[in-house]
């Protein structure tokens, strides 16, 4: 299986989550490497770009803060949820609705992070 298929397989697996709106693999420079979004008019490049830029900003800021680098994050808003995992210079990010199951999402993201580490 080629690298592209392996990345899409990771996203497909995440796509099985209930109330997921999309998922993307991006690098910390804001470039989308692979994505799968389920709303046709969704601006996926902008979404993944903004999230990875914010993570990259944190990486720079946290260099000497004693917290270490960011590993993962889960955010709940009044209109949806976002979960992300950072693997070196890559980020896997999930956008979901308010019904997204965060426990399952966290577990699947960790699995995806391992798959991505193997694929890259």
């Amino acid at each position: 299986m080629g690298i592209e298929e392996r990345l899409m397989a990771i996203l497909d697996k995440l796509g099985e989550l209930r109330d997921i709106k999309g998922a993307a693999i991006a690098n910390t420079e804001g470039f989308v490497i692979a994505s799968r979004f389920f709303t046709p008019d969704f601006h996926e490049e902008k979404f993944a770009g903004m999230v990875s830029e914010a993570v990259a900003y944190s990486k720079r800021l946290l260099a000497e803060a004693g917290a270490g680098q960011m590993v993962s994050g889960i955010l709940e808003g009044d209109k949806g949820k976002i979960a992300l995992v950072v693997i070196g210079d890559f980020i896997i990010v999930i956008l979901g609705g308010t019904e997204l199951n965060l426990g399952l999402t966290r577990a699947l993201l960790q699995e995806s992070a391992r798959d991505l580490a193997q694929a890259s």
Partner: protein
Amino acid sequence: MESDGWKILYLGDYSLLSGWLKRVFEHSDLFVAVETISEAKELLDRQPIDLLVIELGKFRSGSDTGLINFARQRNPNIDIICIKSLDSRKEAPESERLLMGIYWNLSKLDELVQSDTFWGVTHASDFFSLLQAVALTGKSVMLSIHSGEIYGVIFIENGVVVHAETETLEGKDAFFTLASLSGGLFYVEEDVTAEKKTIDEPLDSLLIEAVSRKEEIEQPFYALLKNIMLHMPTGVFWGAVVSKDGQRILGAVGEGAKGPVIKSVIKIAQTVSEFIGEVKKATFEFENYHVAMECIDNNLYVMMAFRGNPALVEFVLSKFVSTYSPLS
């Protein structure tokens, strides 16, 4: 400010400062803000820059001074302003920490920024000292302060505060709002008098009142944080109550560098709010600990840094916030 024809490069990621500089140098030919050394080098290679503003200590050791040498090789007459925020240089003597948030290496910039005018970056502990130092000069000064979405001015004449205003307040209320900011940029102009007078009190008595008001506001948040830390089932490193824009810390307990973590978490929350609405709750895993964050009203977040089971900590945090929030 006379900066016509200048080409200015700002290297750093302090958006507040970048915005401020952009306004100060609004008449320059070119103002570019970049965040990495390589971008800065590329730009310096491409065209002559008259003024380089660089944040020291943000980059890998030595690479910032390396860039300064690089810039000087490209243009020996370049002016360079090196900025270091005060919280990262606590070892500096008080007199330096007070005013010189910004160091400069000037030639023609001397014409621009006279000795009676200075800029700086300050933090809460220095703000009162800054006001006192300004008042002690006995001159008529206008102190402009910019922090997050708040912009305001304080006029001091012969050691007496005569006027203060923000975009929404004036008089003592404006003064106390500005005095409560935990950090921001300031700019002092001498020989400026207020067009109107809304306050007539010596600075010292206003500062005493500001401290007591600040304590009155912060005390319930300290109580909440201490209560949470006491009852947490696992080791908590620190806790803080912060404004949603991250500009004001209303209460903080525990050990550890909070600033960069708070700034990072807030930045991510602000970024994603476009997609998921206002962030109500978040958990972040860092290499050395977790951070849980919960909204306690429309304008504040409580944050805890801990090591242990995130689900359990989130549960306890939620319970305490809903039960003991000073705003509930």
